[in-house]
């Protein structure tokens, strides 16, 4: 009897704890959404208004801002092209590491991992000087090149964990049937881990999309990315909270949609395949 009571108390307190934590972790996002659909007067009201007449004016003014649209477009181009490069060079490397033994394999694997450890600022200073010398600052090209550093380790290590899940027998059968190693990789292995490639690509795109530092330093009016646009918002329109929140929400929406697709691979991606989640 006492045992049962005790269990009930534990259950209730666990659920309560979980709900309190959930409120803490969700409230800011909800509040940001509220702010984005408030008029200027409502957003600055004190005490804060929880019931108000919603408006889409903030979204309208952000979405009709040519600079923002341009930034959104830049982010898209940079993300897609840097990812194409990374996938193109990274997936074969990842296959070599997952399947073959060769000299210095551990060193190469660690070298790749070290790009995830290295601070972006240490990469940024030399590349900034290089692009300055070449007259390439404020181009999408400079961002595409530097964004490779964000995702190379992710692609190679995450793909490795997917490739390891593919049974070896398939390649061996293909080799016996007369395929070259390259054919068996392209025709047999790649189609089998298409899901993994898509998940990896989506996560890589999200990391590229969210980057602020590279964009801030390497881009001016021309190649400005969406996060850089948001970052500059406050400096000249100090108290446009509604618009600021609306722009933040709009920048986040693609991420939410994408992560929705690959939710179950999110932890695998964030830990570079170390934890399968």
């Amino acid at each position, binding site marked *: 009897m006492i045992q049962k009571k005790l269990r009930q108390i534990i259950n209730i307190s666990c659920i309560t704890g979980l709900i309190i934590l*959930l409120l803490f972790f969700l409230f800011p996002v909800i*509040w940001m959404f509220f702010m984005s659909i408030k008029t200027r007067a409502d957003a600055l009201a004190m005490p804060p208004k929880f019931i108000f007449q919603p408006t889409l004016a903030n979204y309208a003014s952000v979405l009709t801002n040519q600079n923002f649209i341009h930034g959104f477009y830049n982010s898209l181009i940079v993300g897609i092209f840097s990812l194409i490069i990374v996938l193109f060079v990274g997936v074969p490397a990842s296959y070599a590491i997952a399947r073959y033994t060769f000299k210095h394999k551990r060193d190469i694997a660690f070298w790749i991992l070290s790009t995830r450890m290295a601070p972006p600022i240490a990469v940024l*200073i030399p590349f900034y000087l290089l692009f300055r010398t070449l007259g390439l600052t404020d181009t999408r090209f400079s961002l595409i090149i530097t964004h490779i550093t964000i995702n190379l380790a992710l692609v190679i290590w995450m793909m490795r964990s997917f490739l390891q899940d593919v049974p070896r027998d398939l390649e061996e059968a293909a080799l016996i049937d007369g395929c070259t190693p390259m054919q068996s990789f392209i025709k047999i292995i790649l189609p089998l881990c298409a899901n993994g490639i898509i998940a990896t690509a989506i996560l890589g795109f999200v990391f590229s999309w969210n980057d602020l530092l590279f964009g801030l330093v390497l881009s001016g009016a021309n190649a400005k990315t969406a996060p850089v646009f948001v970052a500059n918002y406050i400096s000249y329109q100090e108290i446009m909270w509604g618009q600021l929140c609306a722009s933040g929400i709009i920048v986040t929406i693609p991420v939410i949609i994408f992560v929705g697709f690959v939710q179950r691979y999110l932890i695998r991606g964030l830990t570079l395949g170390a934890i399968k989640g």
Partner: protein
Amino acid sequence: MSFLQNKRIFPYLLLIPSLLILALITLFPFLYNIWVSLHDYYLLYPKDMTFIGFMNYLSLLRNGDFWNSLKTSFLFTISTVGLEFIIGLLLALLLNRDFKGKNLFRTLFLFPMIVTPIAVGYMWRIMYSPSLGVINYFLSFIGITGKEWVADPKMALLSVVIVDVWQWTPFMALIFLAGLMSLPREPFEASIVDGSTQVQSFYYITLPLMKPVFIVALLFRFIDSFRTFDIIYSMTGGGPIRATETFNIHIYYNAFRDLQIGYSGALAIVFLFLVIVICTLILRWSKVEIID
């Protein structure tokens, strides 16, 4: 074509493009940073660039702002990663129980880590607003008078720590949850037979078995917390009076506001060195293999 079919050469063939890219994104910046750090180089006068040996390294050791930023970084990193670890473990244990709507809960906790970081910073800045912010409004209900938060040099670091904890605790929790769910059942069944309590089996079985998961989580959080940029840049810009100027922000300002490229190169090398050493220490000390 026999070249392509050679099984010994094939893996290298697959690796070559990556190795070239790796050289471009690691060797080039590394060597360039070292080279530039040995020079007195003010960006606007590249012609006045002069070789000064290790002077930049000596002057950073004598620079109070350098030490201050390092101290701030370590304070920030240790408190964020520590808090995220503890709250994350608690959250993972709560989520690991059986209840209705478990999956929905798990999905909702993803939100903080997928909101674009720059938006996270501004959102909290708005909530922290001393006169118009919702946080002081809530605190007034429990009799706490309004704080200045990010505007107060004494509270600013705590304020950004709270935001980082908000943003990344779910990451820790979900890693831990994945670890908890993949634990083997046998040791727990055996311990019940042996009559151990839940607390004992948590301490003697769960924690040791979870060690590799803990290390992976700590490693990744250390790397990212130590280089935090977006939320600090958007909330405080390193201020007030350098209270939140972490090492990363310090280098950013030296390089791209003060344009002291030579000196910043030296700082970047120190940063790289610190990160590599600490990561290696974590891996050595824990004896966890992440490269198998």
